[in-house]
């Protein structure tokens, strides 16, 4: 039978692997408000205001971690840095501001963008935080039908995974576009997600995953939706 919980967990596992706009190992410095580099370009690497970037490789621990990009140029990132922890509070997460420490340029530093740390999973309390991007999911079980013969015949289902991306208002369109491009690549048509047994959840090719345009929503955010149509075949359990 179609196992909605197994499908959802497989989709989340894949979603959590989202990673894009990597700079690779570069020579970079930390300032009180962000990071700088002398060679290469943060813009060319795909970083944009509104994204949540992760810095790594700095000697000072406070300079490593996540932060919302508020401005991006070829040689500088302006960042609101913070640490996010899952909590039992009504908001679901605890966000602790982190102060960057000035650190001279050195090699071996890197930056990349992953899934926003604030995630509104289905039916879990959540409150967004101003200035931080976040993502929300809806899993749609969709219709199913038996397409094989007999009591153990094959059942075909068409669930969908709907991801809603919220980026801080006023940060432009590039952050959302970057997230969408990475999500569509992560869930490319015909992507297979093995489940328990012989069942496989696949991303459909027609309709293939698609995104909507960016629209202003509640004060402080703009949102768009990425829809991932899926197909699963399993055996009837009668």
């Amino acid at each position: 039978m179609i196992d909605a919980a197994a499908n959802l967990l497989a989709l989340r596992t894949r979603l959590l692997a989202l990673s894009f706009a990597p700079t690779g190992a570069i020579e970079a410095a930390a300032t009180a408000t962000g990071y700088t580099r002398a060679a290469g370009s943060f813009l060319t690497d795909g970083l944009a205001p509104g994204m949540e970037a992760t810095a790594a490789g700095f000697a000072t621990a406070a300079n490593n971690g996540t932060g919302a990009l508020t401005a991006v140029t070829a040689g500088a990132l302006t960042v609101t840095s913070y640490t996010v922890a899952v909590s039992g509070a009504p908001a679901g997460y605890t966000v602790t501001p982190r102060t960057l420490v000035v650190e001279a340029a050195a090699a071996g530093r890197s930056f990349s963008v992953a899934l926003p740390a604030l995630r509104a999973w289905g039916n879990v309390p959540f409150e967004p935080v101003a200035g931080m991007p976040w993502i929300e999911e809806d899993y749609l079980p969709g219709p199913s039908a038996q397409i094989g013969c007999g009591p153990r015949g094959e059942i075909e289902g068409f669930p969908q995974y709907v991801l809603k991306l919220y980026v801080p208002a006023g940060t432009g369109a590039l952050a959302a576009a970057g997230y969408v491009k990475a999500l569509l690549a992560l869930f490319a048509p015909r992507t297979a997600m093995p489940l328990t047994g012989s069942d496989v959840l696949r991303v459909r090719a027609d309709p293939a995953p698609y995104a909507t345009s960016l629209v202003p929503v509640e004060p402080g955010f703009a949102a768009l939706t990425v829809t991932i149509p899926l197909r699963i075949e399993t055996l009837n359990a009668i």
Partner: protein
Amino acid sequence: MSFAGDLLRFRLKVERRANAVFVNVAASTKASITDGSPITGAPGQPVDTSFLKNSWQLTFPAPNVAEILTGCAYARTIEDNLRGATLRSKVGGFHSVKLTRAGFPRLVEAANAAVPQ
């Protein structure tokens, strides 16, 4: 009776059937969005004042083109269940357009089967 006459009658029959399937598909697609459908799994539009549901219009701007449109400002918030959307209706729900789109091939199959041979 002639071969040319047979061909003409067959062509007219195919055209009538194709047109009937096309119109039925358009109508069932719109119905899936507004009223819901067991074929697509779409829940249909929620109804509070009926403004949203009644805002959906099916038009045929060209012989082989059907458009299903809404001018309701909050239609997308309901469709995508964006933050701030509240379901106050006992009928309908979110994501009806997505589910209808995903189930479109089955709507075509059903419309085709419903047209007499």
